[in-house]
């Protein structure tokens, strides 16, 4: 029974990892920007959530749109200023700038909010309550987050493939110059895409803060690395691959934890490295995209 439980837990956690990954994936797909500060920005979102609830005493659910809106605005502004200037100077500079931003955010949070872990209090019984199926205890929260991940991925997929603005984003991603000649301001489109990516980053940060606790170092040692592992396992540039990758990573971790609690993270990384060696194009993509 422990093994079945581990696999189900792993699948549900995989949804959270897919949520971590879709912002990273989106920004790489559109701007070719590998954002090393991705995880730290998710932690910033979680801290904003904690702050909003603590300061203006609103119910948890009302704080979500506020955090998402703040992060979307931050995404647009960061993209138009820092990220765009870095992109203009080449890939090496974007790596240096986003790595610098990651270290600045992490140590800034450490400086102002100490190394203590914090959780987002929802004030409802949702976090603690669970239901049982065939003797398995499943937390409602895990199910809700998994559903949220699926909804986010579905809407992103629909938005990018079917909406007018989604087509514009894909056009700019495919050929910046040609899209500009056709009248699109690529910097603004990049800004919108970044805002969109930051919305998912905000949701990822809040979701993580609800399931467990966040601390200033969570951004890199958990969110960024898990997101990246999910992207690589699933295959670059595929949103559904990201969900598959997240689930594989989650299941591997839970099975590792089942063997020995201290193997949890190591098991996840071993699967990641195995995929890197055996199937570098990822599990879901057919051709190598190098």
């Amino acid at each position, binding site marked *: 029974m422990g093994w079945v439980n581990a696999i189900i837990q792993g699948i549900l956690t995989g949804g959270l990892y897919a949520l971590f990954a879709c912002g990273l994936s989106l920004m790489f797909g559109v701007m070719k920007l590998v954002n*090393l500060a991705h995880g730290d920005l998710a932690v910033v979102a979680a801290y904003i959530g904690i702050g909003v609830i603590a300061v203006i005493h609103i119910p948890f659910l009302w704080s979500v749109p506020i955090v998402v809106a703040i992060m979307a605005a931050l995404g647009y502004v960061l993209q138009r200023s820092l990220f765009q200037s*870095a992109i203009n100077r080449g890939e090496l500079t974007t790596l*240096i700038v986003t790595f610098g931003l990651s270290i600045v955010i992490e140590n800034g949070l450490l400086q102002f909010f100490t190394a203590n872990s914090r959780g987002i209090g929802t004030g409802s019984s949702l976090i603690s309550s669970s239901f049982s199926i065939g003797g398995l205890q499943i937390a409602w929260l895990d199910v809700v987050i998994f559903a949220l991940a699926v909804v986010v991925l579905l809407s992103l997929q629909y938005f990018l493939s079917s909406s007018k603005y989604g087509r514009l984003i894909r056009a700019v991603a495919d050929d910046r110059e040609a899209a500009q000649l056709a009248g699109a301001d690529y910097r603004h489109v990049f800004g919108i895409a970044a805002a969109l990516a930051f919305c998912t980053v905000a949701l990822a940060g809040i979701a993580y803060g609800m399931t467990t606790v966040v601390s200033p170092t969570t951004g890199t*040692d958990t969110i960024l690395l898990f997101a990246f592992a999910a992207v690589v396992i699933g295959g670059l540039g595929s949103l559904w691959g990201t969900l598959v990758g997240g689930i594989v990573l989650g299941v591997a971790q839970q099975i590792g934890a089942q063997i020995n609690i201290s193997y949890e993270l190591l098991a996840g990384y071993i699967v990641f490295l195995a995929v890197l060696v055996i199937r570098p194009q990822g599990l879901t993509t057919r051709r190598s995209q190098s």
Partner: protein
Amino acid sequence: MSVTTGATVRSEENLKVTRSRRNVAWTGLGALVVVVVLALFPYIVYSGTTAIMVQGLIVLTLASMWNLLAGYAGLVSVGQQAFFGLGAYFVLIPAMHGLSPFLALPIATVGAGVAAFPLWWLVSRLRLGYFAIATWVLAEAVALFIEQIQSIGGGTGMPLPGFAGMDPTLLAAYTYWAALVVAVLAIAAVYFLLRSRLGLVLTAIRDDETAARTSGVRVGLARLLVFVVAAAGCGAAGGVLAIDQLQVVPGTSGGVFSVQWTAIMAFATIIGGLGTIEGPILGTAVYMILEQTLQSYNAWYLIILGLVAIGIALFARRGLWGLVDDRFNIRLFPVGYYLWSPGERRGRQGRQGRQAKGAAGVAS
């Protein structure tokens, strides 16, 4: 030092190619004097000063290695803490079996270099951003793996044996000399590697990888060599840290496997000047000044260092040494070539030869 010029150059122009615009004999002599003076430091200054300088020399070694990786081979690794930590353990393990930690330093260097081969095999297919995060994941995996081994301290670490009963002043002096030897060898290794064929190959790859490949340059081999050398250098620095701290503490926050080590080496390099040998030296000096001034304000020095590095990456891409070079046109460690225009003589100011700087400077 003359190089045969290609057939495209008309012979009557009589072009001359040298390593530097100026005579560099005095810089070689100057470097020797600096090293000798630094070696005499334990006799001149208090042990508190040499203790700080050990930290600086560790950072200098790390920054020189990161510069070789990112500045010359285009490999932005965020996982160098893996080799740094392994180096510390490669000093600890022989010391637990009775070997003097100082004699274990070569083991740490070679051990970290050997460990680089399988890790390179895992990440060699990835480029730039994905390479950066993959090396980070690898470093995390290495740290988790080491923490599983209980006999070398598991997740809590171990004190370094082998110095029982040793005079602390003498130990401090030996530690300082070990750090100095490692740093000088690291810079010398980078200098001579870049003056060798590898330097030429790396310049060719940086300028146009496809053209280099079609000309028969073995791009993968050149990158592997740089990765292994950088790993070995970081391993040696990790070994020095183990001796300096008299213990090895694992862990990805605060321990030897912390990403902050890579942050420090990267920021020092970028601030000093990526792609010049002088850059990491200048950058380490800036790092040490900031760290010493702001050490009572916890994490602030890393925040400021990060902000300065971002600013320099955006607005002064060749770093502080780039600014010095623009103004005075000097190079203490010439690794490229200087092309003299016809009739030009030493000592006259002229900018014509700047294109021929070879391996110096960041890809534009």
